[in-house]
């Protein structure tokens, strides 16, 4: 990939793969010694080059990234994902995480799993797992234990309901100042697992509540925090009256 000579970009501009944004990054970073290049930016030689189409953003000081509406997941190491098991016949389970290739999950990477004690996973089961390996040229690998061999929050997700949404929505809902999940949690008891790959698993007490929570998640994509709070309040009134 050779960077194209072109107009000088600045933060907030639309950029395309191959655009050279070294200037924008230098100017934005000021005299700071270290700059973070987030997703969508690559370094080739001394230049910073865009690797996916979108809008050049600076979410924090000295942090740059390319933001775009995205539904296709690109696996990144250490991220938590929700996946559907598609093959359990061999030593490694195949898990669909919505990426270009299915991920592999060894049967030994569960808590209390040994060669004799195989975890009870069937085709179609949903798992919440962490990516232990991810790269452009490799198939992603999952684990359901941490470094100490403890499951923690990872593992098989029993029952519940699975929905898909955009990666942007996941990021929005998981940001620390998003009120949706807390507001819904004050309304009904429920359990959820948000994967960075855009899959959301919900488990509530009844079908009615599950549908309500799912719809609330979908609807909040184009709302701000105040609107979300109001929606949760209205939803509570409507569902309780049904």
């Amino acid at each position, binding site marked *: 990939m050779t960077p194209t000579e072109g107009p000088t970009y600045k933060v907030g501009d639309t950029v395309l793969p191959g655009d050279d944004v070294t200037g924008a990054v230098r100017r934005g970073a000021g005299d700071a010694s270290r*700059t973070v*290049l987030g997703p969508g930016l*690559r370094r080739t030689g001394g230049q910073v080059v865009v690797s996916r189409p979108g809008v050049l953003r600076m979410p924090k000081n000295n942090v740059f990234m390319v933001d775009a509406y995205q539904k296709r997941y690109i696996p990144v190491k*250490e*991220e938590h994902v929700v996946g559907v098991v598609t093959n359990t016949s061999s030593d490694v389970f195949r898990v669909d995480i919505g990426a270009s290739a299915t991920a592999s999950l060894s049967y030994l990477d569960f808590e209390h799993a040994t060669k004799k004690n195989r975890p009870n996973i069937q085709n179609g089961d949903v798992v919440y797992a962490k990516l232990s390996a991810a790269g452009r040229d490799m198939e992603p690998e999952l684990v359901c234990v941490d470094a100490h061999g403890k499951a923690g929050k990872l593992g098989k997700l029993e029952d519940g309901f699975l929905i898909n949404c955009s990666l942007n929505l996941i990021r929005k809902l998981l*940001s620390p100042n998003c009120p949706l999940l807390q507001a819904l949690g*004050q309304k*009904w008891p429920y359990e959820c697992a948000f994967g960075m790959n855009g899959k959301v698993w919900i*488990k509530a007490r009844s079908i009615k509540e599950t549908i309500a929570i799912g719809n609330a998640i979908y609807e909040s994509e184009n709302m701000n925090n105040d609107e979300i709070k109001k929606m949760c309040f209205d939803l509570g009134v409507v569902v309780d009256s049904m």
Partner: protein
Amino acid sequence: MSQKRAQKRNLSKGILEMKFMKRSKDKVEKEIEYQEGAEFFGNETRIAGTPKEAQYIIEHSMVPIEKLVNGRMSFKGMNPEIERLMEQEWHNIREQQKALEREISNRPEISDKAMAKRLGKTVSKKYGDRKVACNSDDSEEENINSDDSDKSPPKRGKFLKPKDD
């Protein structure tokens, strides 16, 4: 000079194995390692080492950039185990924030007043002792003696041998 060096490098294995040659052996091994490394990695290591390249940190994930929380949650006792873990996580985050705030404000965890209150007695005692000791005598031996006498409980009366008739 260079000849001498070359000779040194070509010391036989037998000599290098000897105990007193340990240092030179290490040096020779290091040199060989470096040469091999340069052959294998060629220019790459040199490129990576330049400060210009080091100024960029590559981060592929949005999780640390936007400080996203873990996506596994439970509310109102749906899954107590998960709620316990969530509580723990929140606690850790709060502690980290507190530590960060403290660092930014440059205020120590224990205020100067509290520290003075706590340490005032012991420190004053310590320095007080030294002053007294310095004033009283110069010799080291005397100092020790005076310290000892200060620390030890007040002497009781000497044992008096009963007079036998």
